[in-house]
């Protein structure tokens, strides 16, 4: 019974939107808005075949590589920078500067420096996604409760042990918030990295369809992007629920009290 209710909430609005869309195509015909039926057949034709292996999987692969690198880099550097006060003061202005640069403008430069290949595309994704992870981790490390820090010190918990048992878990909620932002930035940059001088990938394919006025095909590509985003966020939520179970519990208690 509860499953049905939850499913109703999850699917209710999408179904309604599709119905509205269908109704719209009944009363008026617009070249740029395909009918739902046509859209579904196009979707299947375009993506359930070679394109899935030639364009979709490589794009997802680069996206995941970029995200994993961003998370590793952001968390490790964030832990170090957050823990060393002078390093933080030294680096923070510089980090803010680099973070402010929109990665798309770097694509031509990177093409010259690295070449037109997978590495370049992964670097573009990392250059955008690493910042929220890095800056949030720094902030999380910095805001570890002083009483907890003193408790750890008084019991001689220092060095590696301090990181594992105190700093990383305490900064966990902030880190996860950063990673959540990194996911959506990564998806955007995955598309952008494939728009210049590329010959395959989701972004490239969608642009191709646009230029050749293959409108239903173009929409189906956009839908694939949306679906990737949904799956990413679903997986993320699952992980977060597991890793930060204590945090949710703590917040619930605090809000109730």
């Amino acid at each position, binding site marked *: 019974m509860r499953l049905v209710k939850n499913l109703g909430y999850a699917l209710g609005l999408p179904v309604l939107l599709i119905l509205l869309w269908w109704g719209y195509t009944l009363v008026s015909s617009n070249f740029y808005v395909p009918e739902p039926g046509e859209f579904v057949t196009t979707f299947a034709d375009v993506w359930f075949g070679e394109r899935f292996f030639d364009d979709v999987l490589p794009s997802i692969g680069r996206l995941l590589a970029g995200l994993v690198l961003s998370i590793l880099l952001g968390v490790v550097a964030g832990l170090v920078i957050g823990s060393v006060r002078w390093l933080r003061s030294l680096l923070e202005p510089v980090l803010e500067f680099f973070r402010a640069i929109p990665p798309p403008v770097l694509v031509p430069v990177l093409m010259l420096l690295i070449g037109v290949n997978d590495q370049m595309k992964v670097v573009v994704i990392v250059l955008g996604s690493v910042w929220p992870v890095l800056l949030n981790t720094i902030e999380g490390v910095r805001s570890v409760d002083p009483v907890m820090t003193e408790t750890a010190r*008084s*019991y001689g918990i220092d060095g590696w042990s301090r990181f594992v048992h105190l700093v990383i878990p305490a900064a966990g909620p902030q880190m996860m918030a950063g990673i959540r932002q990194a996911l959506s930035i990564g998806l955007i940059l995955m598309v952008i990295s494939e728009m210049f001088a590329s010959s395959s990938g989701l972004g490239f394919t969608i642009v191709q369809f646009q230029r050749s006025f293959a409108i239903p095909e173009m929409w189906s590509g956009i839908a694939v992007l949306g679906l990737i985003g949904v799956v990413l966020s679903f997986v993320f939520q699952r992980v977060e629920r597991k890793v930060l179970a204590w945090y949710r519990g703590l917040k619930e208690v605090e809000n109730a009290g």
Partner: protein
Amino acid sequence: MQAETGSSAVGGHGGADRPATDRPATDRSAAGAEGAAKDRDKDRDKDVLLSVRGLQKIYSSEHGDVEAVRNLTFDLRRGELACLVGPSGSGKTTLLKCISGLMAPTSGEVLLGGRRVTGPPKDMAVVFQEYGRSLFPWMTVRENVELPLKNAKLPRNERKRLADEALAAVDLPHADKKYPWQLSGGMQQRVAIARAVAYQPKILLMDEPFAAVDAQTRADLEDLIRDVWHRMGVTVLFVTHDIDESVYLGERVIILSSSPTVVQEDLRIDLPDERDQLTTRGLPRFTELRGHVYEEIQRAKREAGTRV
């Protein structure tokens, strides 16, 4: 404001009630202090576990220096339960941080078992007032209690035994799989006490541990501390602002003056060792001692008023 406190007679008051031998040698030069202290250590009473000598702490800030603790000297014998009581803002927490090695004093020294404290010592445990922020919320009660033991590389079964014993001692044997935030405030502070007890320290420092729990829980926790102290034979230094609590708990009450702090009086509590919330607090001697401590605190506050 307080930084301007002049050279009034506070120090003199502090010395009035104390035996002369316990006073620090105020005339010794800073250079000779180290050597003199070492010589003294050798022939000092073996019974003394904690020794605070001429402790001073000055906080430097943009708005000038603030002298939180001026000159504190006292000894704690092995197995003693002493309460430190003083008016609010008398630098009790500062003192405790210096003793626990979390903060370096501006001058003077703290000796634990004859050795100078420069960082958190191994055989000391601290229980903080903010239990909710002292326990790690991502760990279960058992994990919290076992963490210092794990860090000290104790084998698994030894950790488990010590944690079980400690949790039983604080009357929480069945809460080990819960998270701290699932427990009431009083229970959380019990967990923090269990963590300290399981660590098997020689000395237990407590910084107003019951200030944030309700009155009934507080009475239970006071008896718990007496009980743990009896059973473990640990030395306890209990900081509080509550006069009743200090008299009820301690064998001895050290009364601090207002900031900049000195020891105003060192009072022996000659109540029977077996204490009970109802009968002990009903004793005429209890009322007398409480009245005395109260007057001393009032005096400390008045003197603070004249000094500022």
